[in-house]
């Protein structure tokens, strides 16, 4: 039983890490109706920029803080460039065209980031404790082992959700974002500046990518594989719904726990290595009952 609990907790923690990446997808989809395939590349680009700047600025008085500020500034610049060079010329184009454009952005950022900063593995140490914690030792023999960095990631993800929920629900900009997502033209007609809104949402997604990149980067080292973590976020999105911040979190938890439990308890019967595709199977299974995802919006179109 102790082992089951350990796998379950480990899976939930892994799920939170997936959610961190999934949040970036949700933000842009929620605010612009665009599925941003470049989110993984943004995670890599943000983390690479951050870690390499720390190295370059290591002789200054506050390398981490300075690097963080410069990286944030660069993510703002990136958002502006994306809006100006990619999105603006494609206003009112079909969603699939915008999606294809984000594919291009993903390939560009992957290559640009590595050309600029190198493609080696860079160690990122921002002081997150690594020592695992042993919990419930009196309840289960051997206790339940929990990685402290995963716990911190959980707290960070929780905070992000709260901040984003307030941003979307309580602020003027947040409401404008939702209006743009519903209908570009209608939003423009009532005076919502579409270009500005797109810059804001890509900036916020860039900042979420930076947070995800820092958490994942301190865990794995900053390297190209960070961009592949986006693939882990896809089943989370399918399950949680593309428009729901809460769905990204709940979806992450279900996917994380489901894939770990399946790997441990079903894997040995089918040769193992099933967690990758099992996540998609699990998401598709949920879609049978809720095609819009657990927390996705139901769209009813007049025909």
């Amino acid at each position, binding site marked *: 039983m102790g082992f089951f609990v350990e796998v379950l907790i480990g899976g939930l*923690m*892994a799920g939170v890490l997936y959610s961190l990446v999934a949040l970036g997808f949700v933000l842009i989809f929620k605010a612009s109706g665009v599925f941003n395939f470049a989110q993984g590349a943004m995670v890599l680009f943000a983390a690479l920029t951050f870690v390499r700047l720390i190295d*370059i600025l290591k002789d200054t008085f506050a390398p981490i803080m300075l690097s963080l500020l410069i990286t944030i500034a660069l993510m703002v610049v990136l958002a502006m460039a994306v809006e100006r060079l990619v999105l603006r010329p494609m206003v009112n184009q079909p969603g699939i065209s915008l999606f294809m454009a984000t594919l291009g952005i993903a390939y560009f950022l992957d290559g640009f980031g590595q050309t600029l*900063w190198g493609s*080696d593995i860079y160690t990122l140490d921002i002081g997150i404790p690594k020592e695992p914690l042993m919990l419930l030792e009196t309840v289960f023999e051997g206790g339940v082992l929990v990685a402290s960095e995963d716990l911190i990631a959980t707290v960070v993800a929780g905070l992000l959700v709260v901040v984003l929920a307030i941003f979307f629900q309580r602020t003027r900009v947040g409401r404008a974002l939702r209006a743009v997502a519903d209908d570009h033209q209608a939003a423009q007609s009532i005076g919502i500046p579409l270009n500005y809104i797109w810059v804001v949402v890509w900036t916020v997604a860039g900042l979420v990518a930076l947070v995800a990149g820092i958490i994942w980067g301190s865990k794995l080292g900053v390297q190209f*594989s960070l961009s*592949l973590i986006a693939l882990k976020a896809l089943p989370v999105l399918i399950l949680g719904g593309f428009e729901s911040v809460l769905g990204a979190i709940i979806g992450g938890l279900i996917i994380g726990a489901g894939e770990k439990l399946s790997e441990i308890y079903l894997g040995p019967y089918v040769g193992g290595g099933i*967690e990758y595709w099992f996540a998609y199977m699990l998401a598709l299974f949920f879609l049978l009952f809720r095609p819009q995802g657990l927390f996705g919006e139901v769209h009813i179109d007049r025909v």
Partner: protein
Amino acid sequence: MGYSKLIKGLLLSMLLVIVGCGQKEEGTGTDTSSDSQTSSNTNNQAYAPTPDGNEQFVPVLSYRTGPYAPNGTGVANGFVDYLKLVDARDGGVNGVRISFEECETEYKTDRGVECYERLKGLGPTGATVFNPNSTGVTFALTEKTTTDKIPLITMGYGRSESRDGSVFPWNFPMMGTYWTAADVLVQHVGNLSGGLDKLKGKKIALVYHDSPFGKEPIPLLQKRSEMHGFSLTTIPVTHPGVEQKAAWLQVRQDKPDYVFLWGWGVMNSTSIKEAAAVRYPREQMFGVWWSGAEPDVTPAGDDSIGYSSVTLQHSAGSDNQVHKDIFKYVYDAGAGSGDRDRVGEVLYNRGMLNAAIVVEVIRNAQSKYGQKPLTGEQIRWGIENFELTQAQIDKLGLTGMVQPIKLSCSDHEGTRIARIHTWNGKTWEYSSDWIEASDAVIKPMVETAASNYAKEKNITRASCES
């Protein structure tokens, strides 16, 4: 209008930051950047034939981008630097210049095959010999090279049964197959336990990359498990290996006496970190030679101390004569492929050694066919009849990095000995004597597997008598 000015201003600032960063690195001259080490463009100039056509073309399949770039770059730099050294120091091989072109595979099988098709016809006599640097690409090219008559050198990777030249005349898994590596590891943990008979009742877990590469050692380990009575648990990790929590929770649950790690790229450092996270002792972890280089241990910091791997004979080090020559003729001339400080890392040395063997088999083939550009078929003879003696090793400046090698029609591997090295937090140190893989165990497996392959592909075994 103001908005567009803001964009221009910010873009300009970004440019200044980037330029400033570059200047700082250049000024300090420190290894803050691996840009030069990892640049994907350094050697990617297209092949241009020399006017007299007196050259031997060597195709280079490398990966300097993608998830495996941190490992692939070191191998590629070592390989290319040695080719440059031979051209700069010796004027080629007996006067025949060495030309090459790199092709980026990203460690993807389809890209590898595409690179093969693009490069195989270059040079006055076509491609000399391919070094795919990937087991997946090797599997894909095995049949193609037979048709095209171009040999494949797969130093430390590829199909283990391909050492049987009577079935695989064009494959040369020189210096060690995965069965050799796995056998050496079993013998090593046997030695640590007080003898192979002491492995009875012990548990060994294989944490492996879920790919043809990762699955290769399983038959040998199963065989050894039956022989010595240890239990074997196989735990796959899906590509690229960034998420391994389930695998390591399983290790924590099973509490194996030893873990063998069969990973590549980010999987290795992640495994070491996860082992630390579940408090599995690194002293009981042993990797294959593709899991025992600097990029595998440095990202995990102090968690890597005590971790070991089998070597493909050599470890790290830049004190050999060959390194001194590379510094003198390549780096001092400004032609180095990577960062000077990283010459001599484990994977750099592997690439360099691989290129040295390519050059020596060309030399060997020239001894029969003359000092001129040779075809792949002629080079194949040079490989199959290749012998690297201690005297030649010393002459090449490779003393201590490699032991004598002797290939034959029936043995395309040439040698089956290896050492273990252990990471001490700063560098690799040898932690065992030479261990020879047991051919009494491996040879029957090779014969069976090669026969099965021959039957499946309808291949008639060649005679190795003549």
